């Protein structure tokens, strides 16, 4: 099938499920003509890249040169980047065709996609429920069958959590594995571009194309990139999988626990050894995350000041212009986090909050190092404590924040993690998470391939 045909299919499916008042609202910006032209040039090219003709979407916080990059925010309404993110360039160089920018929580802050200035995204599995967030648009686009591969971004679980809620695969690589150049920063020390795929193979293909050192990102690592798409093996003999008890508390929804135990049984059946382990500082992850991430965000979002680009609300004087622009431009969750972050960095509070949080972050990272050093190759946990919830169900911000409880640890520690579907609960999908040590995406994918294959075999 030609690239043009793939792109036409993607737009046809988009028209079917995304548009209109009852649509999913997962795609914000498209340019069909341009996408078809890109596809035609892929078809005409003498050589074909690894992803030749594969349509993809990118989250609206990743810079693209012909589609807007608004980060789901009014403050960037109409903003088109004059330069392209490294991850977009790499996908396009491999022959993939950008067909749209996907909806997300404003500046990637949220766990339900209810905080987009452009309206919520509906979960394709059940339109009364959230798709998860913040990369909910990308997850829904893949789950709805518009594209096979989509880019999202992670700060505390924003790819894995929506992947779990939408019944697809979502991977967050090691911090430094993928260039952040062109990813609009939320919390720079936690942010990574992640990949959604309909299957583990799709996610692996996408990641191996975008991974690797980028001279434009000083935090990107110079570390060889394996062929993740070939990481699958016949069995998991010799692989030790840790089951961290802190991720299976007594309060965990028993149906979620049951799906996880079933998945662990499948992994065992493939030859893996499952071992109980402990990551003792897990319960501190959410408080630490909600200090560090807002602190960095308060600084990262200072550039949206109405001076150079995006929204400017005219006012009398500079200070008033800043205030009215930012008050009108930012939504409630972004405002809340900027205020929180500004507070924890303020003179007199820095040591008690930010500095302390960094110290605890080190302990969380040490937890992971200790279990991996003890011979564990992978950790298996639920991705989320529950399946997708209904719109408006989490009106208390703290309730919403607890959604990240099993995912934020990997961002704080910088380790790679992937969410793979492990079953349904009342027709709603739920994901299981595999976490590996720094830069060992290959073993992580090996486990993910095995889990996916075992579930297919078991059905």
């Amino acid at each position, binding site marked *: 099938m030609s690239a043009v045909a793939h792109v036409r299919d993607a737009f046809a499916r988009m028209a079917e499920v995304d548009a209109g008042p009852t649509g999913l609202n997962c795609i914000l910006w498209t340019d069909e003509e341009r996408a078809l032209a890109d596809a035609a040039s892929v078809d005409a090219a003498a050589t074909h890249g690894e992803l030749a003709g594969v349509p993809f979407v990118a989250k609206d916080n990743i810079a693209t040169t012909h589609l807007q990059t608004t980060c789901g925010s009014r403050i960037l309404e109409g903003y088109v*980047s004059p330069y392209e993110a490294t991850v977009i360039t790499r996908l396009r160089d491999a022959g993939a065709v950008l067909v749209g920018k996907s909806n997300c929580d404003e500046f990637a802050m949220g766990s339900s996609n209810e905080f987009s200035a452009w309206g919520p995204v509906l979960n394709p599995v059940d339109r009364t429920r959230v798709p998860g967030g913040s990369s909910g648009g990308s997850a829904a686009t893949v789950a709805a069958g518009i594209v096979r591969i989509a880019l999202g971004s992670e700060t505390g679980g924003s790819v894995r959590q929506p992947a779990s809620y939408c019944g697809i695969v979502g991977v967050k690589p090691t911090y430094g594995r993928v260039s952040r150049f062109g990813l609009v*920063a939320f919390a*720079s020390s936690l942010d990574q571009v992640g990949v959604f795929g309909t299957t583990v193979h799709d996610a692996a293909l996408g990641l191996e194309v975008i991974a690797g050192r980028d*001279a434009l990102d000083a935090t990107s690592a110079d570390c060889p990139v394996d062929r993740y798409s070939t990481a699958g093996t016949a069995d998991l003999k010799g692989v030790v999988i840790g089951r961290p008890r802190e991720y299976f508390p007594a309060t965990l929804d028993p149906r979620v626990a049951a799906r996880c135990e079933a998945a662990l049984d499948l992994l065992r059946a493939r030859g893996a050894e499952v071992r109980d382990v402990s990551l003792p500082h897990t319960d501190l992850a959410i408080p630490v995350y909600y200090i560090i991430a807002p602190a960095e965000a308060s600084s990262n979002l200072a550039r949206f*000041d109405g*001076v150079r680009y995006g929204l400017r609300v005219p006012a009398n004087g500079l200070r008033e212009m800043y205030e009215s622009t930012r008050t009108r431009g930012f939504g409630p969750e972004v405002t809340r986090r900027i205020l929180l972050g500004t507070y924890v960095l303020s*003179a007199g509070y*820095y040591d008690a909050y930010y500095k302390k949080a960094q110290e605890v972050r080190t302990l969380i990272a040490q937890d992971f190092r200790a279990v991996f050093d003890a011979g564990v190759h992978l950790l298996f946990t639920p991705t989320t404590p529950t399946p997708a919830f209904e719109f408006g169900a989490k009106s208390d911000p703290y309730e919403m924040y607890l959604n990240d409880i099993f995912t934020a640890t990997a961002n704080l520690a910088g380790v790679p993690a992937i969410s793979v579907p492990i079953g349904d609960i009342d027709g709603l999908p739920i994901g299981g998470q595999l976490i590996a040590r720094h830069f060992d995406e290959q073993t992580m994918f090996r486990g993910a391939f095995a889990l996916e294959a075992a579930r297919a075999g078991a059905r």
Partner: protein
Amino acid sequence: MSAKESTLPSVCDAYEMVVGLEVHVQLLTRTKAFCSCSSAYGAAPNANTCPVCLALPGALPVLNEEAVRLAVRAAHALSATVNETSIFARKNYFYPDLPKGYQISQFDKPLAEQGKLDIGKNADGTPITVRITRVHMEEDAGKSVHDRYSGATAIDLNRSGVPLIEIVSEPDMRSAREAGAYLRALKQVIEYTSVSDANMEEGSLRVDANVSARLRGETKLGTKTEVKNLNSFSGVERALEVEFARQCEVLASGGTITQHTMLWDANRGEVRPARSKEGSHDYRYFPEPDLPPLRLAPAWIDQSRMALPELPSAKQARFAADYKLTPAEIEVLTADAPTGSYYEAVVKAGADPKAAANWVIRDYKQAANASPDPRVEPISSGSLADLVKMVSNDVVSRSAAAKIFTIAVQTKEPPLDIAKREGLIQERNEDALTGWVDQVLAENPDVASRFRGGDKKLQGVLVGLVMKASKGRADPKAVNQLLSARAAAGE
């Protein structure tokens, strides 16, 4: 040092001035600190910008290694200890010419600490030393242009992201004059090491001064104010005296000083308080997550110190020892590194050190100052050495040499060629000299007869007349000998 005598009012007599300086120096890199835009001065507004220095969404900083190299060199030149690990930090504040809403700087762990700089000598010959607290790297902000469009402020971000070092001194200076001496010594070291142009007019060297007053004999520091908007060294000295006098008056009348930022108004010669919020920022510093800690290998740090060029103090000592020059001569010849190197090149090419010093200090400096581009030598060191040697060897007279110098600066010809063409080579041929002497004696019979009559004082007059008749070509020594011989013979 050319500082004017202080004109402090008598109320200050009971008080001592205490000064610490914060100096920002723009590093002489080709490109900016965190992107590859040109850092050149004077381009069209916003011509030297890119996504990084415009702070477009998603852009990231990447550290310029050349900036690190220069910053470390400056730290060594100030005898500071370079930290193997230093950390970039964000200094957060809103301003239209600060596109990211934060400046990348260093805070907790600066590039270097604990340096010092000698700024002169006490009466007993011991050096006056100012301690340097820290040297850290940071980026510059852009420029707000208020006078280009009426009712609006324009922003030029060419300077945004240009690499700087900030050099913070201890409060070790006790007068405006010492502050001036510190700045001149610092500028000299910075120029010697080619770290920066250190040009205050173009803003590549900027000074903020912290000043306080305390009763003489008191050891505790008084409350300081920070004086900003200083745009020349003499302005710094004047501003310090004005602010110190203001503080003395407040203290003498029983008042207290409030810690505040003051702005110097050079036109009015006044300081006035800045708007209060400019002085009370909470910058919410935290480590810059986009840049890993800067780690420098100890061997690299050492190498950088070894590669340091000769510093002014060392050069001054060597010039005194090797060339037997006076302190005044040394001061001029070592004021900047190029002059010292030029002088030494002239000496190395065979010129007498003392004579070469005279030429460089007077004629050469004058020509250099008159030239449109001060970086271009008006005459090559080889040519000047040739000229100095021609004078020493009596090939040309000193006055003819001055003429040759002027022509050589214009035409770049070798001095000997000019001397030949212009007929300035001193004539020692006896026939020619005899001809001129005979001519002069014949044309001045009265003088001639008195000379013959034994009036030796007239010999000088006759030499002058011979020089004139020869249009400066006659070798005055030879003419003297000839006339002495005539006098002895009674001719």
